[in-house]
C-alpha cells in the first residue's frame, strides 16, 4: 500500500497541493492503511473502487478539501506580445489595402444608358424636374435622375487611420515582443 500512498503524493505534487497539506494527507492515509492491513482488512474496504485508481482518489480528496491552487493564466507575456503584433500587422495591412484600392485616382465606372438605334440622330429632350423626357425616342423615354447614395464613410481616410494605428502599434509591440522573448535570469 506504500505504492498507493506514493502515487497519491505524486498526484498532489502535480496538482501543486501545498507540501504541508499533502504530507498531512499522506501520513493519515498511510497510518490508516497500515492499521487496516494489520487487522487483516482489505484496502478496498477503506478505499472502495478508488483502490485501483490512486490518482483519481488523490485528486478527489484534494479537490474536496479545496487545497488545489487555482491555475494561473497560461498566456505568457511572449504570447500576448506576439498576438498583439500580429493583430496590429493585420490592421496595418487592411489599412494599406483600403488606401490603395479606394484611391480617388481610380474613377468609378460610368453608367451608360443604352438607347435604341434611333438615338444616333439628334433627339429632343425636355428637362422636367426631377428627370429628362426624351420625346423623340420610340417609344418615348423618361429618364429619372437621382443622387447616388453612399455610406457616408470616407474609405480612404479610414484606411489611412488604420494604417497609422497599425504601424504605430507595431512600433510599440515589436520591442515588447523582443523583450518578452529574451532569456532572463530567474530569482
Amino acid at each position, binding site marked *: 500500500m506504500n505504492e498507493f500512498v506514493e502515487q497519491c503524493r505524486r498526484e498532489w505534487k502535480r496538482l501543486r497541493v501545498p507540501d504541508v497539506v499533502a504530507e*498531512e*494527507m499522506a*501520513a*493519515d*492515509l498511510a*497510518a*490508516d492503511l497500515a*492499521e*487496516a492491513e494489520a487487522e487483516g482488512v482489505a484496502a478496498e*474496504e*477503506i*478505499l*472502495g*473502487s*478508488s483502490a485501483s485508481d490512486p490518482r483519481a*482518489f488523490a485528486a*478527489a*480528496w*484534494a*479537490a*474536496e*478539501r*479545496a487545497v488545489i491552487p487555482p491555475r494561473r493564466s497560461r498566456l505568457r507575456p511572449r504570447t500576448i506580445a506576439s498576438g498583439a503584433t500580429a493583430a496590429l500587422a493585420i490592421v496595418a495591412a487592411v489599412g494599406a489595402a483600403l488606401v490603395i484600392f479606394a484611391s480617388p485616382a481610380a474613377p468609378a465606372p460610368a453608367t451608360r444608358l443604352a438607347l435604341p438605334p434611333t438615338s444616333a440622330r439628334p433627339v429632343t429632350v425636355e428637362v422636367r424636374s426631377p428627370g429628362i423626357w426624351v420625346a423623340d425616342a420610340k417609344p418615348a423615354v423618361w429618364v429619372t435622375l437621382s443622387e447616388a447614395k453612399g455610406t457616408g464613410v470616407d474609405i480612404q481616410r479610414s484606411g489611412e487611420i488604420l494604417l497609422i494605428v497599425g504601424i504605430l502599434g507595431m512600433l510599440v509591440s515589436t520591442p515588447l515582443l523582443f523583450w518578452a522573448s529574451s532569456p532572463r535570469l530567474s530569482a
Partner: protein
Amino acid sequence: MAVSNGRRSQLLRGVLDLCLLTVVQDEPAYGYEMTKRLRALGLSTVGEGSIYPLLGRLERDGLVETYRAASNGGPPRKYYRASAAGKRALTDGLAEWRAARDAVDGVLGLAEAEVRS
C-alpha cells in the same frame, strides 16, 4: 449483481455524510476508526468512493472540527468531530432522509403488495 451494487452506491452517496457525522457527533475519531464504527453498525462498505474526500468536504464546509493527537500506540492521527454546524446539518439531513425514505416506501409498498398477492 452489478446493478444492485451500483444502486447501493448511489443510495449511499446521498447519506454517507450523515452517517459520518453520526459516528463522530459524540466521540471524535480518525479516518479508519470511522470506517470501523460504520462497519460495526452494519455499513461494511462505503461504495464506489471512500470516506476521505467526503471528510475533506465536511471539513471545508465547517461541519467537522479537526485536531491532531496521538492514537493508541500509533502515530499522531487527525481526529474529526461534528461541529455545532455539523450537528445542525445532521438534524436537518435526518429529517430530509426520513421524509424521502417514507415517500419511497409509500411507492415501493405498492410493488411489495403486488408481489404478495
